[in-house]
């Protein structure tokens, strides 16, 4: 069964039709590259899946069960994690602090509960080790490289063993060496059976890690095919409209 299924998802903001009847499925352990020009509706689609806003019509199903998200936190509870483009990290907290932000581990004695720093640091360290990332739990995020920050944001999504991880332009603003780190992280997510949707402008990244590519143009899905049957030239044509659909 598909881990995520979108059926006829549309979204309009007043008179603007941002998405029109999008059908999309994602399988476990699979990475889907979502491509499209600026304003094609990629971010809108991601935000609908992540629960930032509800679709105007159509439905979303997780593991075959139709779901309705009011807020991002509800999507997270049902196994949808998102890595935002700006990563949404608190620079003044440690790596472990960010990983556990909003779901801190606590110890309790009667009515008094306190943060269990040791457990959070250990668990965060395990997550970084699983991601093969050279990130230390007690370091402040402020002092980290772009790749390490990505690792923190990705480690956070793995805390709850999510069904699906959405990644919005994870390689947009980092160096070449760090891009490799991030792509390795995505491979690691796939290996552990997570579904990944990758929004990216960078064609090489999509072709390096994704199993399927989907292209949005003016709010409509114009292609959804295995990456092996496509080519960067075809995808470029689909994005610009030189190729109508595939």
């Amino acid at each position: 069964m598909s881990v995520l299924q979108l059926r006829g998802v549309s979204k309009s903001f007043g008179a603007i039709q941002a998405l029109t009847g999008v059908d999309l499925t994602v399988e476990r352990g699979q990475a889907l590259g979502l491509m499209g020009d600026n304003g094609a509706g990629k971010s809108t689609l991601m935000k609908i899946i992540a629960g930032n806003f509800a679709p105007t019509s159509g439905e979303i199903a997780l593991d075959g069960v139709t779901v309705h998200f009011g807020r991002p936190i509800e999507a997270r509870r049902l196994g949808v994690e998102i890595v935002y483009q700006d990563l949404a990290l608190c620079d003044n907290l440690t790596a472990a602090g960010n990983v556990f932000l909003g779901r801190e581990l606590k110890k309790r004695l009667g009515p008094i509960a306190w943060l269990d720093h040791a457990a959070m640091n250990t668990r965060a360290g395990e997550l970084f080790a699983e991601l093969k990332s050279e990130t230390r739990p007690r370091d402040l995020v402020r002092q980290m490289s772009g790749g390490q920050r990505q690792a923190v944001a990705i480690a956070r999504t793995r805390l709850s063993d999510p069904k699906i991880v959405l990644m919005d332009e994870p390689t947009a603003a980092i160096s070449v060496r760090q891009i490799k780190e991030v792509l390795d992280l995505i491979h690691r997510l796939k290996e552990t059976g997570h579904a990944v949707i990758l929004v990216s402008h960078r064609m090489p990244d999509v072709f390096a890690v994704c199993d399927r590519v989907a292209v949005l143009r003016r709010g409509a899905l114009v292609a959804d095919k295995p990456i092996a049957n496509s080519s960067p030239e075809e995808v470029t044509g689909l994005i610009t409209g030189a190729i109508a659909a595939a």
Partner: protein
Amino acid sequence: MTTDSNAGHARIDATIASRREMSWAQSVTRTQPFWVAIAILFIGFVMMQVSDVFMTERNMFNVARNFAFFGIMALGMTAVICTAGIDLSVGSLMGLAGIVTGMVMQAGWGIGVGFLACMATAATVGLINGALIAYLRMAPFVVTLGMLAMARSIAMVASNNKMIYEFGPDQDILEWIGGASVLGVPNPIWVLAILTAVFWWAYNYSTWGRWVFAVGGNAQAARLAGIPVERVVVSVYVISSLTAGVAAFMMIGWFGSVTNALGQTYELNVIAASVIGGANLMGGVAYALGAPIGAALMELIRNSLLLAGIDALWQQFFVGLFLIIAVLLEQIRNRGRS
């Protein structure tokens, strides 16, 4: 430092393990309160050489008691500043809370009711500040500046511009709480010490403390992580107001009287104490220990100028100077890091 991407993962693990994280001493010496404490010891050492009066028990007693009130309020202010906010209304609130306490006790109520009235007044003002800032998204500067004017005005109206010096049946208890000592240490210092410990614990070990720092570091990220940002913001203004209420309650006990001018211009000293103690006005950085340390430095400067025979009119000049120097140092250190 960097690891070749082809290297074995075992090597990465070994590298991570071998890289020592900051030791306790390193992390302490990086904080502003540490360096301010060093400055306090230095000034104290110099004053011991220069003045015979400085180290006398009487002078130390006065210094300690004077800074305790600012320290208590500065604790609450650190929480507000940590969320990138500011609370200008604490001085006026002292006047209002003090007058309310005085009127309630003058009317014959006991110390318990007087204290509750004081805290309820403070909590109400804090709630109004917090709600306007968190839910109506108004600038903290504007909201609390308005409250500065309004709270003082209500205190004037309520007191009919008269001093209150009779506090009913529990007057002795009130004066004991604010003015007496336990084990040779003035009571306000005890309160400051206990509250500092509570804030230190809350900042390091409570979910609330973690959330306050998260909101100050990146409010949007905190919201996306499911943190109730609005409620956290309201809570810091309520807590700032409550510390002002506690300071007012103890101060009227010490004075044995209250006028509606209680706490006038204190907001400047309280904010200065928090900032000198390392709280960053841009949000996300605050130290519980910074509040008493910052307040102590300011009181020490005041006392030193007094003992050195320098005109008291210069005091505010030096408070302002140290505030500017503290912020400047913070910026220079940050530049060095990034």
